[in-house]
């Protein structure tokens, strides 16, 4: 049968033999990581020099975080997807436990009014970053285990949402509005993909929307952030400060940017230039061209993840399929939200730019996600080889 396959489609055979890994995805992710290192260095240098007397203060830490992240990615690649499927729920429960720990005074560390970190020696653990990945794995495994309930019963939707809701509530208490939103949106998109019935879906969406609106209205600083996003020039020195500075950065960039390292906005005007507003620095220094390449790279990663998921589904691996698509949605969503916040089309939230922003947890979880994608891709390739080509697969491969 193998021989028959080969004779039928020699072009495909060559490609499969050559690529045991999804090299385009790997190259794209590594490229984003390297680009992130360059941009974090550029964005943080003047701040680092002023605060710590060493312009490479943040760069060195970023390099260390990258080392850690690549190691974590390597380890995650070595873990079989079956392991994630079996223990996914427990990992998610454990991460909810850590989210509780963060909120206990004395354990969690407060920075700028938010308690998001647990100090672990030189490293600060930020569980809300990891929870996003683990929630996808948990929901994926749930959807596989309860595949029959998913489409027929409302509980198929509600049960996973209970745990997700607890995690979301804990993250909101930190408070971390952006991460909550991205996590819930990802999980709901995943459930939607998995065929959950629309009625509870719409209902819950309404409840969440109402809750979020209430939260925004009741919590003045978020309200200020929302109004700042609508018109940052209304109050450009208070609530609209960060965004207006970010917009100025983009405006200065024009087509090709002011040149790497020549940005002005990062010099004490733009708070969080090396973390949440890194895209603004890229926009200023590398212009529209740099931004288009960046957005293109994220779109590519998203598309690649979803297509891996579709191929996994085709070889009857629903868990891997859901995980891959979930990761794709999550990375796409988070990058869109981050850049969208930077250019002022979405309200200001504390979200990192995946693979680029300074922050070890974000890098680690990003690398793990890519590693899991690569692992799934490798598995799918193997299964495809074993099963032989299927006509129904062509459109997914295109």
């Amino acid at each position: 049968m193998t021989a028959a396959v080969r004779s039928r489609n020699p072009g495909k055979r060559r490609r499969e033999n050559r690529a045991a890994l999804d090299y385009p995805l790997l190259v794209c992710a590594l490229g984003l990581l390297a680009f992130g290192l360059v941009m974090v260095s550029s964005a943080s240098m003047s701040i680092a020099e002023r605060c710590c007397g060493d312009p490479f203060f943040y760069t060195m830490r970023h390099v260390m975080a990258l080392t850690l992240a690549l190691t974590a990615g390597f380890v995650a690649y070595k873990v079989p997807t079956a392991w994630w499927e079996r223990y996914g729920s427990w990992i998610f429960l454990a991460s909810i436990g850590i989210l509780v720990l963060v909120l206990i005074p004395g354990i969690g560390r407060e920075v700028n009014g938010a308690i998001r970190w647990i100090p672990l020696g030189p490293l600060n653990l930020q569980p809300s970053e990891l929870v996003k990945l683990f929630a996808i794995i948990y929901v994926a495994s749930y959807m596989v285990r309860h595949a029959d309930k998913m489409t027929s019963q409302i509980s198929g939707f509600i049960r996973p949402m209970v745990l997700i809701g607890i995690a979301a509530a804990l993250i909101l208490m930190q408070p971390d509005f952006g991460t909550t939103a991205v996590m819930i949106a990802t999980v709901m998109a995943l459930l939607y993909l998995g065929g959950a019935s629309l009625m509870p879906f719409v209902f819950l969406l309404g409840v969440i929307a109402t809750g979020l609106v209430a939260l925004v209205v009741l919590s003045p600083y978020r309200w200020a952030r929302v109004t700042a996003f609508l018109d940052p020039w209304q109050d450009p020195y208070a609530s609209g400060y960060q965004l207006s500075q970010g917009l100025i950065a983009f405006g200065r960039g024009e087509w090709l940017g002011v040149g790497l390292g020549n940005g002005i906005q990062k010099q004490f005007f733009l708070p969080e230039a090396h973390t949440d507003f890194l895209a603004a620095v890229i926009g200023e220094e590398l212009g529209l061209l740099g931004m288009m390449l960046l957005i293109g790279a994220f779109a590519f990663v998203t598309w690649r993840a979803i297509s891996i998921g579709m191929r996994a589904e085709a070889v009857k691996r629903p868990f891997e399929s859901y995980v891959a698509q979930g990761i794709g949605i999550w990375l796409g969503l988070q990058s869109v939200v981050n850049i969208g916040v930077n250019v002022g089309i979405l309200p200001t939230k504390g979200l990192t730019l995946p693979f680029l922003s300074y922050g070890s947890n974000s890098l680690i979880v990003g690398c793990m996600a890519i590693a899991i994608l690569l692992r799934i891709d490798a598995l799918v390739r193997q299964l495809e080889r074993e099963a032989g080509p299927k006509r129904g697969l062509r459109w997914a491969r295109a």
Partner: protein
Amino acid sequence: MATHSRRGRRVASRRSKPNLVLRRRVLTAALSLAFVSLSAGVFYRQIIETDFLQEQGALRYLRAAEIAARRGMITDRNGEPLAVSTPVETVSANPGKLLDDSAAVSALAGALDMDAERLRAKVIANKDRQFIYVKRRVTLSEAEAVKAVVAERKLEGIGFEKEYRRYYPGAEFFAHVIGFTDIEDRGQEGIELAYDDALKAEPGLHHVIRDGRGRVVQEVEQIRPPRPGTDLTLSLDRRLQFLAHRELAAAVKEHRAKAGTAVVLDVATGEVLAMVNQPSFNPNMDRSGGSEQRRNRALTDVMEPGSTMKPLVVAAALEKRLISPRTPIATAPGYYKVGRNTVRDVHNYGSLDVTGVITKSSNVGVVKIAQRMAYSDLWHIYDQVGFGHPTGVGFPGESGGLLRHYSNWRPFEHATMAFGYGLSVTALQLAQAYSVIAADGVKRPVTLVKRDAASLAALKGTSVLSPATARKVRAMMETVVSDKGTAAKAQITGYRAAGKTGTAKKAGKSGYRGRRYQSVFAGFVPAGQPRLVMVVMIDEPGGKSYYGGTVAAPVFQKVMQGALRLFNIPPDDPMPSMLLAHRESAQ
């Protein structure tokens, strides 16, 4: 097989999840839409809205800021600094960063020699601000100490700004001439004001990027480079100035005088070598003292010159060949009626010759000499030696004195003009007039700025008297400093000195009543070939002695003695030293 699987899926879709593919497509479309609208948003900001955003940016980070520039240095004729701008630093801090670090506040206060408690209170009071001045205009060494503290404790938010502070090494010795600047580094008095245009530094202008804390982060472009002020070399000699100041201060103190002034001129160049006043002030310290301390009396205050005018009257008469030094003048009986007024001598000197009139300072004699001339002759000599006109040193507040035109004179005024009443002059004008006699009749403009080679070459004098007349007058004035004259106390061993005393009654509200005098001595050394002219005026000596010969002449003697040594001027009269030796051996 393939057909079967497709059919199977379709069947399954119909039963339980009819639109799974559709859902995926919806989601993919939604994500694609998100990416596309994101790109559109970026395009809008970067290309369409760019002008507005760049303008907004420029409003925030671009500032035109001044670059501190150094004001010109003022030195004496030998390059000794008299007014210098020293770089200083202003230390600022972000109070929020210091709030919890009490030890750092103490360390900072220690480095700046401040009270730690007060600094702490200042930090706490401004804790909501981003910026406070810790201390303004500190010395470089203090700034270094602060930088050490910052490095040691890894402090944040401490900033430094470069400024200049004016410092006057000459202190009270030069205070009146130099003047001082205000906090904005602009000249307020004296040379600092007169030469402000040259001295003042033009701060540069640059576009700088300022961070949110208002501090300069980076220079974008320099619009105008800073232009440091031009240095200025004065004609004053620091050593002579010190000496003159010391002796004048001692005399003012000794005679319990109200004030005093002294001027030394270089005969050959018209340069002012020393100009001192009492009382004085220290421009480096509190300048709250009034104008009594601050005025440069040598230029701003006028006096009636009194008997110091007599050599000029004689010179004018000699020039007109109306008299010779030996012409006899009858001064008996010691007074002389001019109209309804009477001119008096201190004693009845009987019959004197012209030289004797100068030696004894006879008012009667000099009036009789003056009466041989027309009003205009007397007025001309006074006018030509510079009375009634500012000297041209360009000093702020300089008085030109008062010399009324002869067409308005009455006979008695003509008489009083001859012995120095009815006109007023400044000490510098008097010194300038005497320098005409000293320079063989040539008047050269006086200056407070050192003449360089080019300016010396271009220096032109106007001839006022013939050299012969000047020599004759000098010979007469030498007799004043002799044992027979009124200023024996001006004698300098080894040198021939010449001069004239003056003791003018000060005019008050009720005329020339009351015992208020101005004791003056004006003279030059060495008498044969004068090099230096000096005028000393002591205002209202409070002691018993008030004559120019006893109050002002000793100051001349002490200062000139030192000056002759300072300038290596060879002795021109070896005889007195032999006489002195003779006297000493006889004792």
